């Protein structure tokens, strides 16, 4: 249980200028953490929405600030953009009389695996795992292979511990492609869980087209009256498509866990007087 009445938590997300649902999980997780009373202040900031990373530190007065990237993996944003925009010196930054503590992204957390399994079983209740393939679908990108590695790691962990007939990592932009889901599986049931932070552009609009359950990208989730209609009968199978893993309420716990992990990794930084700038 975190009890930091003199500290602030900043949750960093990507956001979107096109999709109104991209920021929602960040905002909801922040409100949940605020409700739990763990910190003096809890705020969110974004790359593509407001408040920006350039403004957010003015919104908090605490001298100790934990920064958790709500990103699915290490990569370009967590390693380059966020440290640059927040002017971080590394895991610990001493600036203007305060200490900024840069935590690992939530996607790295080992508890991601049970959350993925929970999401899969809730999406396809009653489906026998031994007759089902579980597909984790990530973005995949040529810019940074960490995001692909994160999805692959989750698939491997799940394969080791559950009775699914097959557990595969798939991607939007690199092989194995999610568009080939029906070729790379041979079970009567298939459940697909998007390895994304929100039901935004990719997980709600692009991937359904790639799966064949929509003929073209639809309006955003919050602008539709009807949500998903599982199962979809495609290619002689029953296909179940979940909401993005980042919408799982348990994500708030992962954010808090990354704060605790930071304190465990840097015990000397806990409750120390901050050097003057």
């Amino acid at each position: 249980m975190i009890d930091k009445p003199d500290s602030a938590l900043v949750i960093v997300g990507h956001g979107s200028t096109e999709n109104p649902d991209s920021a929602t999980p960040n905002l909801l997780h922040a409100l949940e953490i605020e409700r739990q009373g763990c910190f003096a202040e809890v705020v969110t900031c974004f790359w593509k929405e407001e408040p920006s990373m350039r403004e957010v530190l003015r919104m908090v007065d605490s001298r100790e600030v934990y920064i958790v990237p709500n990103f699915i993996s290490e990569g370009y944003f967590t390693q380059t953009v966020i440290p640059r925009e927040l002017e971080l010196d590394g895991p610990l930054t001493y600036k203007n009389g305060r200490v900024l503590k840069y935590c690992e992204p939530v996607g790295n957390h080992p508890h991601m695996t049970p959350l993925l399994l929970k999401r899969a079983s809730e999406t396809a209740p009653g489906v026998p795992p031994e007759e089902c393939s579980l597909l984790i679908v990530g973005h995949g990108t040529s810019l940074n292979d960490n995001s692909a590695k994160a999805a692959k790691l989750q698939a491997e962990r799940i394969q080791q511990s559950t009775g699914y007939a097959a557990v595969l990592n798939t991607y939007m932009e690199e092989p194995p492609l999610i568009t080939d889901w029906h070729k790379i599986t041979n079970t009567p049931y298939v459940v697909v869980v998007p390895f994304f932070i929100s039901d935004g552009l990719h997980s709600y609009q692009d991937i359904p087209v790639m799966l064949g359950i929509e003929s073209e990208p639809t309006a955003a989730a919050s602008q539709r009256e009807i949500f998903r209609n599982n199962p979809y009968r495609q290619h002689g199978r029953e296909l179940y498509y979940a909401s993005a893993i980042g919408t799982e309420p348990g994500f708030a716990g992962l954010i808090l866990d990354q704060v605790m992990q930071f304190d465990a990794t840097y015990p000397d930084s806990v409750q120390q007087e901050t050097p003057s700038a």
Partner: protein
Amino acid sequence: MRSITDHLQQWVEVEGRCRIGQICLLKSEDGWDLRHEEDTDCANETLKTYWDEMDAMELARWDENHEYRPLKSAPNLARGWRLIPADWSQIRAALDRFYPAALANYRAWRCGQLRAVTLRETVSRQTGMYRITGKLTVEQADDLVGCACEPEKHCLRRILWELEDGKAITTLGEAKAMPPGPRDLALPLEIPILCVEMCNLLVAAGRKYIKSLPQE
């Protein structure tokens, strides 16, 4: 430093600042009533009543056609509502949803603790797909800002930054700048929404601008 909430209460109750962006704060029997500036003459019963920051989040997310508002300082806030937060901390929380970081920026500016960042500095630090914005000349940047930041169409923020040191923006009018003089006397009836540096939307617009130029 005094809290943002305490500052807000002083700005409104003592200094009489009753506008921020397109929102007016009206004293009422319910406490403080936030509503669209064009609804100040509307009877309460003609407006839908809301209560807290979650409501503010939704009101700020959509325009009147239920189209998404990615930029909260865009001049397209929907009308037809009144929001009556319970206390000053909730008024602050609601305004943080309508105009994120606006109160924090204004507090820092009033206290002399805000450093505006030139456009040149912002584009020079970009990487990846936005690195190309570093090629913007002063003239091109001035043109870009004049189109992309215009208050009646795009953004209500008042710009504090220059294009480069000593090179001011020439393509925007008085409504986009802070007037000179003592800070506590500037724009006496409003809490201005300040633009401390070029935002990512403008960086993205800068990328499109450069790519649209004839290739050399």
